[in-house]
């Protein structure tokens, strides 16, 4: 699938995307994106994923016995520091 602007195919453009993004270039302004529906849709998808992730911080509960292990470790550390010269 060959795109006219910049003579970049979608394949070439997408291969260069990580590098382009790394340079800080505004990808939405890239001539290929301006003229290519597919790559524009790809970037929209990636933005949608980022947006969805911002709403997502699933909260997980640690196992109940984890506190006992932490408590024991703290007690051991305190005992060690008391016995240190």
């Amino acid at each position: 699938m060959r795109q006219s602007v910049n003579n970049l195919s979608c394949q070439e453009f997408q291969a260069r995307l990580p590098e382009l993004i790394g340079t800080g270039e505004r990808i939405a302004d890239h001539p290929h994106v301006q003229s290519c529906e597919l790559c524009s849709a790809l970037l929209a998808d990636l933005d949608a994923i980022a947006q969805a992730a911002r709403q997502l911080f699933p909260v997980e509960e640690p196992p109940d016995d984890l506190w006992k292990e932490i408590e024991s470790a703290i007690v051991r550390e305190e005992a060690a520091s008391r016995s240190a010269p």
Partner: protein
Amino acid sequence: MSYSTPVPPLRNAPVEAMAGATATAAESVAAIAPSGNDPAAILARAQGGDHQAFAQLYSMHKKHVYSLCLHMIGNVAEAEDLTQEAFLQFHRKIGTFRGESALSTWLHRLTVNVVLMHLRKKGLQTNSLDEMMEPDSDQRPGRSFGARDPVLSGAIDRLTLQRAISDLPPGYRLIFVLHDMDGFEHNEIATMLDCSIGNSKSQLHKARLKLRESLRNPPRQEALK
């Protein structure tokens, strides 16, 4: 010496809100909550060596710390070990917390550092963090040249996204969690991971591409059982 069982906080107000509160605001909160359960008072007691107060801080922050470890590392057993290490470091350093930042922010960064230190140590045994950040070619995202998949045209399913994130290669997951879920900036990530800002940006892009692939082709439910 024994610690008492952690007790849940009476309120969910963040500690920092209380730590930075004016006297008037603190007084008004004190009027509606027992002073012993005031988060700022709990923190002060824990800093003074009160074990029960530290147990209360554990109860208040355990879910966030554990979830952060689990999302960054993607492995339950390691997440438990790292949560333990984070709280041990929290206990060792609690006296140095002066309230310039929010306690939750401070603990969050401490936890991120604990996980990164763990990854660096692990990297020495296996491969470098740079290598880990760039997974094998079969784990890298492919390229997409077909028509836009309608799956991503609508709302992204929360559970599917969570599963896809947990299935990301470790390096991609790390950058994605730090940037898109935790809100760290690329310059902060570059400092934390000792990589260039450009590398952080391009890795994030690859992580999102990989997620897009997973969201377009989610594993079949039967395969997950």
